[in-house]
């Protein structure tokens, strides 16, 4: 299994541009998450999904959108990039959401810079 994969690894955007960060997992996990990590900080939840067609906002959803059309894929869309969105983005997945078994497995991250 490849686990959780993310593309691209690095990206530089100009203010106002749009892009989609890709995330895929091959573990048949039903739960998927997007986090962002600012320098020297822990991760903050942007959006999450509990299955195809079901998504909800996390702590910091403004400026982002998601969709979940398949179990495997959970892309994150930035519509009008702003410098405040400069960060490292991590996708994670977990199997059940069950209270004691919900270990989240992380992808390698996408480093995004908005200039």
């Amino acid at each position, binding site marked *: 299994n490849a686990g959780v994969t993310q593309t691209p690894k690095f990206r530089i955007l100009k203010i106002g541009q749009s892009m989609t960060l890709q995330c895929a997992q091959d573990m048949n996990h039903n739960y998927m998450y997007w986090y962002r990590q600012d320098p020297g900080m822990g991760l903050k*939840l942007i959006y999450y999904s509990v299955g195809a067609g079901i998504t909800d906002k*996390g702590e910091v959803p403004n400026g982002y959108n998601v969709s979940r059309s398949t179990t495997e894929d959970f892309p994150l869309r930035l519509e009008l990039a702003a410098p405040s969105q400069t960060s490292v983005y991590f996708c994670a997945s977990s199997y059940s959401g069950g209270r004691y078994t919900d270990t989240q497995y992380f992808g390698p*991250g996408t480093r995004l810079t908005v200039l």
Partner: protein
Amino acid sequence: GESVGLHLPTLSVQEGDNSIINCAYSNSASDYFIWYKQESGKGPQFIIDIRSNMDKRQGQRVTVLLNKTVKHLSLQIAATQPGDSAVYFCAGHIVLKIQGAQKLVFGQGTRLTINP
């Protein structure tokens, strides 16, 4: 609100010594805690977890202690090796709105440096 914090941003230890990384949390509703290791340029990697009905759990060279009275967690790494150099995060689980999904509330991390 909930928060999880780490006591020290950096920790330096001699190779072969034991390392202890501390973490405090504020939300009593967190009943599941995880320690993650993050190496430079990589995503967080699961190390060990502990449920709130336990006060100690051991893995290979790692032990997590949970003190619910003072809302404190610690990660102990035995015989620290150069490969243990990384940033360590503690995270607590908070249940989200939909179908039991949970978010991780992360502390800021402790950077562990191993001196030869």
